[in-house]
């Protein structure tokens, strides 16, 4: 019997990506059932699916002690490929098909300003929180500020200006909190902040910047907005890595004397 189970497992292990399609298909199906039957369609199925995905990722982390959520379970490693940056970006780019070029042209400038504003707000909010928790040197404050931008900007900035590994870990955690919060909260706050047209989607992408958060949050709000938000968000991390160790670091060092 054990032999039998082992050989069945082998099928799944050898076809990781196919297993991932099946598992994700089941998660999405279940989520749409919950959306229809328990919330009468009020909560979007994709919002529930993302929440469910995050909950499973937490479980995966608890079970394996790893950093890749469900994908750390050998049987479900294919989910890591399916949800990895390569296929995610491929799918994001494909959503540009059928985008309205005039909307981009019209909202382009507001998107660019949102990027800069979003980066600076995140850095300074993160730095202020770090300060209030007793991290009062410019290097730690800038690094944690970078984490409040995205979980990539934080460690890149920290490495560039020589932050301690403890601070870098904190900055990654701050970035993860932001990415997850944006994924979960966007559908709930969308109507408050007027997130219902391409132009505010571009502004939103620029202000938030976390590609995974924006990609998930907008998908759960209105998939038609995804390409507009993603368009600006993809510039954020690169710009953050540029501005963090340079302009922001100098300003923070100047401010705390």
């Amino acid at each position, binding site marked *: 019997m054990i032999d039998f189970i082992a050989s069945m497992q082998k099928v799944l292990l050898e076809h990781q990506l196919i297993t991932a399609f099946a598992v994700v298909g089941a998660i999405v199906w279940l989520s749409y059932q919950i959306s229809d039957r328990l919330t009468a369609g009020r909560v979007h199925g994709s919002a529930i699916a993302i929440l469910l995905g995050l909950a499973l990722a937490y479980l995966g982390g608890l079970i394996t002690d790893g950093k890749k959520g469900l994908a750390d379970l050998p049987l479900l490693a294919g989910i890591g490929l399916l949800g990895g940056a390569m296929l995610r*970006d491929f799918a994001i780019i494909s959503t540009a098909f059928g985008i309205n070029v005039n909307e981009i042209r019209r909202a382009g400038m507001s998107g660019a300003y949102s990027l800069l504003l979003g980066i600076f707000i995140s850095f300074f909010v993160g730095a202020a929180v770090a300060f209030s928790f007793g991290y009062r040197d410019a290097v730690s404050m800038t690094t944690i500020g970078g984490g409040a931008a995205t979980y990539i900007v934080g460690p890149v900035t920290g490495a560039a200006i020589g932050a301690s590994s403890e601070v870098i870990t904190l900055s990654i955690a701050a970035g993860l909190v932001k990415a997850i919060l944006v994924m979960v909260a966007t559908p709930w706050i969308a109507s408050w902040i007027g997130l219902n047209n391409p132009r505010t989607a571009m502004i939103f992408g620029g*202000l938030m910047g976390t590609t995974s958060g924006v990609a998930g949050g907008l998908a759960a709000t209105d*998939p038609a907005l995804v390409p507009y938000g993603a368009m600006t968000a993809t510039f954020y991390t690169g710009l953050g890595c540029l501005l963090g160790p340079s302009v922001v670091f100098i300003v923070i060092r100047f401010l705390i004397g």
Partner: protein
Amino acid sequence: MVIYGVGLLAFCMLCGLICGRALGWLIGVDANVGGVGISMLLLIASCEFLRHKGRLLVASQQGIVFWSSIYIPIVVAMAATSDVRSAITGGPLAILAGVLATVLCAAMVPVMDRMFRKGQSQDDGGLAKGHGDD
């Protein structure tokens, strides 16, 4: 053929990522600056071009549309592989920094929207005139 659409999508992505990487190299950061955004613009431009020439067949479009319709499952897979445990165990500092940055930036969305909508009404007039001259 469907593969033409998928191939075009792949080609746009690779070109865009190379441009993004080059942009990063130019400004001196080891990161991709807007590669995905550039890829999207390339895809839009090449589809427009092919449509004008009447070469964008329905089958080729399906190769692109498939990927955009599989987008949500991919995002679910992304959520299922994120490091939720580290985010939660990061402690109050990490949580507060992440939450405050998100809340403040979200609050700026309507502000930015209003600011640029004001400037827009004048721009629109100019644009409309420009198009008339074309």
